[in-house]
């Protein structure tokens, strides 16, 4: 799949804004790109167990080949309305701080090699700005590059009960 040599492993923050291969996903009509190197799996609709009393961005937990994976609702994370329950959602599984997370998206597209990632416009919705490491202009669409670490950063914050 990869012609060019893999860039040396760097901290998550260093990766942002770098060009490379991205998996395109659609969330609430908007096109997003997730760094392919950070993706472990792409899953179809899953049976998800709800977890009460956790932040609303946490959709629940699912069983991925014997490992328990926390499901994150990308729509809620991006301040978008929830999907209707019968939609066939896809999930992108990533690892963050030694834990597996499955990010629920509307659809999964293709892998694109992205160059010329431009900084976020200052007018971007703050919820989006926190998770985005830049914007790429495609031929007939705009793609928001997702910083996985920042998308999942909230899981470390203390929930208060």
């Amino acid at each position, binding site marked *: 799949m990869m012609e060019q040599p893999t860039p040396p492993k760097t901290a998550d923050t260093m990766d942002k804004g770098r060009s490379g291969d991205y998996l395109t996903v659609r969330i609430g009509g908007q096109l997003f790109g997730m760094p392919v190197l950070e993706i472990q799996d792409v899953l179809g609709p899953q*049976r998800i*167990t*709800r*977890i*009460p*009393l*956790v*932040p609303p961005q*946490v959709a*629940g*937990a*699912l*069983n991925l080949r*014997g490992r*328990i994976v*926390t499901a994150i609702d990308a729509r809620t994370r991006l301040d978008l309305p929830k999907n209707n329950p019968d939609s066939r959602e896809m999930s992108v599984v990533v690892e963050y*701080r030694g*834990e597996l*997370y499955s990010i629920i998206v509307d659809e999964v597209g293709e892998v694109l090699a992205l160059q010329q990632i431009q900084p976020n416009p200052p007018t971007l919705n703050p919820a989006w700005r926190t998770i985005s490491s830049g914007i790429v202009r495609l031929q007939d669409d705009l793609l928001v590059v997702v910083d996985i670490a920042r998308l999942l950063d*909230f*899981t*470390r914050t*203390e*929930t208060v*009960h």
Partner: protein
Amino acid sequence: MDDLMQEFLTETSENITVLDGELVALEQNPNDPGLISSIFRLVHTIKGTCGFLGLPRLEHVAHAAENVLGKFRDKELTVTPPAVTLILEALDAIKYILASLEQSGTEPAGDDQELILRLNEAAQGRFADPAATSAPVSQPVSEPSADAPAGKKSRKKALATVQEAETLDELLAVLTAAQESETVVAATETPPVIVAPTGIPATGPAVAGQAAAAPSVTPAHDVLQDHGGVREPGAGQSIRVNVDLLENLMTTVSELVLTRNQLLQLLRREEESCFAAPLQRLNQVVSELQEGVMKTRMQPIGNAWAKLPRLIRDLSNELSKKIELDMRGSETELDRQVLELIKDPLTHMVRNSADHGVERPADRLAAGKPEIGRIFLNAFHQGGHIIIQIGDDGRGLNIERIKEKAVANGLTTEAELSVMSETQIQQFIFRAGFSTAEAVTSVSGRGVGMDVVKTNIEKIGGTVELRSVAGQGSTFSIKIPLTLAIISALIVEVAGERYAIPQISVIELVQASADNKTGHRIEHIDNAAVLRLRDQLLPLVTLQEVLKLGSSTVSPQDDKYIIVTQIEGHVFGIIVDRVFDTEEIVVKPVSPVVRNVSIFSGNTILGDGSVIMILDPKGISGAAGELTMRCADAIAAPKTRVRQGDLTTALLIFRAGPGGPKAVPLSLIARLEEFERGKMERTGQSHVIQYRGKLMPLIAFEGYSPDLSHGMQQVLVFADELHTMGLMVEEILDITETHVEKELEGLRADLIGSAIVSGRATELIDPAYYLRQAFPGWFSSTEREATQLTRGKRILAVDDSSFFRNLLAPMLGVAGYDVTSVSSATEGLKLCEGGEAFDVIISDIEMPGMSGHQFARTLKHDPRWASTPMLALSSRFAQADIDLGRASGFNDYIKKGDREALLGALSRSLGQQIGSIEGHA
């Protein structure tokens, strides 16, 4: 060499642990030649091995200690406490060096000249303590110990060889041989468990013969034969395995178990499957595998106790107390991981018992107890769990001091304390920073203790319970799972979601239905759900509300299930919609984002492949909040109060008629009911309702006149064996526990006193008044003759509870007796001294100061009152209590609050008395 050192350290630390125990045993039993030989060999082994490894400092100490022990063995010296102390000191020095070896790989700097000098002096028979120097033992010894010199000889041979050995290979060969002989010698110290290595019946001579026939390890056999083949070598039968390897194996097997469960679940759905037979086989094999792997991790709990005899010995010296340690069930096996985790808490608790619990000999004698205090440890299996009890027969927890400390530390307030039961107050010792020791000693009292103990035990899914009786001692009961790897959990459903509750937390399951068809019904007191379970009111927590889940998938009319659980002395119920099976689950830690939700202790994957959250009842009780727990306190209290003989009373508060809230003792109420007013029928002046197949009279509370044409009516049901009546009240407000004290001036007929409840004066009603209204013939018909007989008879009632005195006086007064009541046995005796005479004496058993038993015994020896019949009134009603009562001189033993029984017993004893008087006349 590293491996060799590691091996040496592991083996030596094991030996040292054994030594500690054996030395203490030797002190108590100084003439046991077997014990002396065994200790000698262990020290010798340590010395021998460290000689090879180039550890001069260790070798010197061990050598000096061995010399002294050698003299013991050869009976040149007598075993005395100072001698044992000296040897123990040497062991401590060895331990210190070993610890340094373990950490840095080298011996610590410095030497032990002073200690070695003393040891050498001792070997010459000169002890620091002059009393210890004494002549050789003169008693005959039952069995000559020929084995030890032989063992020594074989090793000496090996030692000699070492000096001549030139190449490393030679050295290693010799070393192996020597070690082998050492190991066998060490192995002979283990209890004589006979294991036949090849299935040959393991009789002693046969084994010895077999061993002798094997040519390869000659030195070992000399030793064996010297032992006469009585014991069996265990060394060849076991290997050392890295713990991590076992852990990994366990995890893998756990996963295998889960996969098997999944497969079995799939199979259940198939009617006929070609997989059925192989799966059954797999099932069996996996179960065996699981059991086998579990066994590899099992260790006797005695391993965690091995250091305790030494600890107790040192503590008793340090604290000048006499303590005997009684350990039972030390062979009980549990998972080594669990064992490691409870080791420190156990040590801490034993330390506490010795320091805080057991009194000094003089105090014990003064309290009428044997001089030697007893600390006991008991371990046993109970339904998939291990119960470990640690207790002492010391002074028990000092409630007053705990109260002071709790207030001083800002953990609670005086007001809160006043309504707490003793059990609840005792729980404060589990709070952080809590220590009641007056001074910080080197032993305990630093205030970092019981909270850590409790946290550690709860971390592994265990529970700690505390029972303490002033003057009789305290007992902690620890309940821990056999293993941490796989737990049994109950799967429940609420609002369409499934959750697992660890089986260890579940006391029982109750099915409650709206129409009471299961005999259980969820009721509400001021919005707090409660369940009447046997004689207890149980506060309930709705899981759906705690988890903030949406609407339930089952209708409120459907049956609910209540999981009865206990946390820190509070028993409460968790309401769920459905209960499924129990399943074996592997607890997996939750994701970080869930970690601070205290309600979940983990999550797991079920047999059907779905993820399920594991609930932590402790978290639930915490999340359910103050209100529920307050309710729990009040409801849990009556039981405790009765047991502890506390002076507070649980009251049900209600509103009816003019004036403030009214109260009635909870213990007098049979049930709380709500009736449709339309179903009430009128008979003459009163109302009745069909209730449990009978007509029950309904009386309105004095001054309360409800509109009975429509709506629902709240009713308190009072009952005895024959009669049931309902008291109509406006609203049930609360259940609370409080002191009942003041008797009202110019009391209304239906009131027996008043109490301050939540800052308001609350009138206490007399149910007997309403019973008389409902059954006017009750007293007159059944007891008229009795009343004739009893009229004017004088009764002395002794009870420390003013409430019971207030209850007894009017009740017996109505029956025609003339009642004098006093609050203590001493006051009763004063009346006796003052020349008063009574026809019957009724006395409480548990009273502060002089108990009912003592009171009865005293009176039976006093000619003035010896013939007066005595009735015991107690809430304790076990056969043993009754027997004790009778032995003390009570004519009859009546349960507190059982009016019928009391009246019956009164007329019986009076009748007997009259009968006997007539007989004499």
